[in-house]
């Protein structure tokens, strides 16, 4: 063992700190963002064909249930994007890693878009199924609060002039808002609602025809890849802004 080798506990954290390097993250996003985007596009095509053409109609709802193939994946992703945002914001807050806040900032608009999609498609599904576009039940209300949390995070982050203070304040908001996530998920179990319970994530197994479950899962993977791709290009934008005076950004812009 050489005397100048880093101590064991320091070496174990090297991978973690490499993610803290803005240049490394920029290169990683540049490489993987477009690839994930292409895969997402292909999977969307497959999922849309399977969902809109190949899957049979539902025995009760007829064809209106086909909204499930965009409603459920966007709703899942609205929660997943929030958890990703809160975790990276917390890492940025605790370890003072700049990348943490950069990733959190990039998650927010994507998460807000997913939440908006879930709310609009849910409403358009509710009219032919329940008989109303909107009802203030626990599931719908908590999902609407999620949209406001995303808007609040983005507004707070942009309203504060000092970048460090903005990052800290919005990170605390993101972490505190995390409590809404289990509330959204369990709202249909804890209280009685008009919204139905979980179909896929059920203890006894999914209660859905396989020909409907496959397009649902394909759309889920497609939207996951879409999220990765969108996140990568947003991370690049954030880094070009915050690191614009560094030599590596000048190298990228100049050549």
């Amino acid at each position: 063992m050489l005397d100048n080798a880093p101590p064991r506990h320091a070496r174990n954290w090297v991978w973690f700190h490499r993610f803290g390097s803005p240049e490394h993250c920029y290169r990683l996003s540049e490489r993987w963002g477009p690839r994930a985007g292409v895969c997402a596009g292909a999977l969307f095509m497959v999922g849309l064909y399977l969902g809109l053409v190949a899957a049979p109609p539902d025995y009760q709802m007829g064809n209106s249930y086909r909204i499930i193939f965009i409603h459920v994946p966007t709703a899942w992703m609205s929660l997943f994007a929030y958890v990703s945002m809160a975790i990276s914001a917390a890492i940025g807050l605790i370890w003072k890693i700049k990348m943490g806040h950069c990733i959190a900032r990039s998650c927010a608009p994507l998460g807000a878009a997913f939440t908006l999609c879930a709310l609009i498609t849910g409403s358009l599904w509710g009219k032919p199924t329940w008989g109303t576009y909107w009802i203030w039940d626990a599931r719908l209300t908590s999902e609407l609060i999620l949209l406001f949390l995303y808007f609040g995070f983005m507004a707070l982050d942009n309203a504060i002039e000092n970048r460090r203070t903005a990052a800290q304040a919005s990170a605390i908001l993101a972490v505190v808002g995390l409590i809404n996530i289990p509330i959204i998920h369990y709202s249909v179990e804890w209280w009685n609602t008009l919204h139905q319970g979980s179909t896929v994530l059920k203890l006894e197994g999914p209660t859905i025809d396989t020909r409907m479950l496959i397009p649902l899962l394909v759309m889920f993977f497609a939207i996951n890849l879409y999220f990765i791709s969108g996140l990568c290009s947003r991370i690049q934008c954030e880094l070009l802004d915050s690191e614009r005076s560094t030599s590596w950004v000048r190298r990228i812009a100049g050549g």
Partner: protein
Amino acid sequence: MVEFLQMGGHGFYIWTSYSIVLVVLLYTWLSPHYRRKRQLQSLLRQIRRQ
């Protein structure tokens, strides 16, 4: 084809929701690409001026 578009009378709800999602997701995906293009252009101008 007409039958497919009508979706058993639910065509309005299905096609409205699919098109709104398409517009929202496409905008969210494209906007950072244009933003990056603008950023790189302005950085290049800045470098040339120096």
